[in-house]
């Protein structure tokens, strides 16, 4: 029983990370209407920034958080201005092909510049463990979970309580009506894209002490993020948080109870079931 509880907690902690990666994706899809296949590569970029800052100036990822977020915001701004603005009115398939192309360019650029080496930020927290009762919790995962949930809640409150947040929701609900109400929707699109990129940047910072970074690390998480977002209800932020934690739990429990071979099969099965019985996602509007 103790190990079942341990598996459950491990799943919840992993779920927090999945949620943080996914909320940025959900925000961009909800507000801008873009399916960003390069989201995983933004994660990879953020992890490389954390690594290189640690490598050159010995600042641990948590200490270089602000540098990382500023750089990721800049990346988000440039990508939005130079690339995304050109396809905002285009067909969804065009947008998808473009972001898919962007993901390949970023992956191969990383391969060319940084080579395929696995690069690690191994600091004290990487192997630190918090023992609570019979459970052994990775300190880095606990911290990542707390920050992930905090950031997701902050984003939710931002959308509920601030003018820009409400404007984003308005644009997400009906772009044309929002424009008629005097909202500068292009500006809102840009802001949403930058916030989404910064959120995945934050995820990259928190994951740096736990995972090696290499050019294709993003691919390991982007499929998961898409499943989480669809499961949660596409543009729903609470849905992404819930979906992330649910996937984490299902993955961990299936791995423990049925065997590691069934980890991925289990959440794919859940994904299919949700698509059959509630195609709009758990938190999605019909």
């Amino acid at each position, binding site marked *: 029983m103790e*190990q079942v509880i*341990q*598996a459950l907690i*491990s*799943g919840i902690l*992993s779920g927090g*990370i999945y949620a943080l990666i996914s909320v940025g994706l959900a925000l961009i899809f909800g507000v801008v209407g873009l399916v960003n296949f390069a989201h995983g590569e933004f994660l990879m970029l953020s992890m490389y920034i954390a690594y290189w800052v640690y490598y050159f100036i010995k600042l641990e990822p948590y200490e270089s958080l602000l540098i990382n977020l500023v750089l990721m915001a800049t990346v988000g701004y440039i990508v939005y201005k130079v690339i995304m603005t050109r396809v905002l009115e285009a067909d969804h398939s065009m947008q998808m092909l473009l972001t898919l192309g962007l993901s390949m360019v970023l*992956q*191969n650029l990383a*391969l060319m510049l940084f*080579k*395929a*080496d*696995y690069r*690690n930020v*191994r600091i004290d927290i*990487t*192997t630190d*463990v918090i023992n609570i009762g019979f459970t*052994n*919790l*990775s300190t880095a995962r606990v911290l990542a979970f707390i920050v992930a949930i905090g950031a997701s809640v902050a984003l939710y409150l931002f959308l509920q309580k601030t003018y820009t947040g409400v404007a984003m929701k308005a644009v997400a609900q009906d772009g044309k009506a929002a424009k008629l109400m005097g909202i500068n929707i292009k500006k809102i699109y840009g802001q949403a894209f930058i916030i989404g990129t910064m959120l995945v940047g934050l995820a990259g910072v928190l994951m740096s002490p736990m*995972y*090696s970074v*290499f*050019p*294709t690390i993003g*691919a*390991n*998480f982007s499929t*998961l993020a898409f499943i989480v977002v669809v499961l949660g209800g596409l543009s729903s932020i609470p849905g992404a948080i819930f979906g992330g934690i649910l996937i*984490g739990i299902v*993955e*961990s*429990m*299936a*791995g*423990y109870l049925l*065997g*590691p*071979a069934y*980890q*991925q099969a289990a959440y794919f099965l859940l994904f299919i079931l949700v698509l059959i019985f509630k195609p709009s996602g758990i938190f999605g509007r019909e």
Partner: protein
Amino acid sequence: MKKFLSVALALALILTSLTACTEEGSNNDVLKVGAIYPMSGTNALLGSQCMEAVRIAVDMVNENGGVQGRSVELSEADAPEPTAAATEANRLVDKEGVKIVFGSLASGNALSIAQVTDKRGVCLVESGGIADSLTDSGFKYVFRILDKGGLRGSVGVDYIAESISPALGKDAKDIEIAIVHEDSSYGESVANGAEKQIKKLGMNLVSREHYNVSVTDMSAIVLNIKKAQPDVLLTVNYIDDAVRLVDTLKQHNAMPKVFMGCGAGTTDPKFAMTIGSDSDGFFCTDMPTNLPMDVFAGDEKLYNAVSDFREAFLAQHKELNAVPIAAEAAFTGAYTFMNDILPKAGDLDDPDSIRSAALEEKLELTALGFGWDLGEDGQNYAAFANINQWQNGKVVTVAPEKLKNGQAINVPLPISSY
């Protein structure tokens, strides 16, 4: 205008065919070989190292006058996964006209490449894929220089029975072993060999689990190991998943008394460099690696080749303290084939002639420390796996006796949890 276009087109055609003839003529002076490795994707690190090793081998052969007077021209291909491997094999054979392919690191890729090359009469020299099926499938032009996966698993189990059991003060039949392996044909083959040997020796297999290398959290795997509390954990991994497995074993206080890695992931210098001193005492069953140079002392040419290769490779990788095993194997495959086998082939453009030379040639020693003796199935039966152990960040060979350069330490592991 139409007439002018027709004449221009005809001239262009004539010029093209003349150029083609010239190229055909010059092809007699060139031996085209290909190399297919994962240069991108999850296995890109090991794949890139292998490609560098093949480049060094080609350069060395060309500096020594090439093969039968023909200079070797290398065409490279990136294959992150089996479908890409088949596509690239088609490209190398059809467009580049290669006669020999060096590959492939991953067993899945090797099988895909073999299905393309074998039908076209192109030789595949495999120095990475260890899945048993590669040489059990009836391919005619596949030559594998290294041991089979099944053998590697069984060698690990033999060592557990013969040397680890006494060190743990237990009878071999009382030793509890858990197997965890990544789920490709590589992991499957090694684990199958280990399981078969465990049963044969009447030992106790307490659990066997497999996982996908892209799994993001190893907790579930490790909690199953913790539940089984084995004496020995026998694992088959690539590098990144091996590191995450060790970290998670420590997190959950589930480190067994003995950690026995089988394969490239736990033998690669990057593995020990990443986890640091915790690796002291970890075993890794693999091809012989970084053997002391005196092993090659009886063969001056081979001695110089190994020495030059290590120097050239490490000059490009100042961050490493030793040549990774995958790269050593890739070098050995390419160098041995071009230096020892091809010069004996009657006709370099005839795959049957190359096959005859490959099967007839017997070598006492290659750069990997074992010899060359291919069976009809293309498997090198002189190849074997040895038992290495990480000691102070370096690989020490602890078995077999003839290659041993140190004694096993840390049995049980000082970081063992129970």
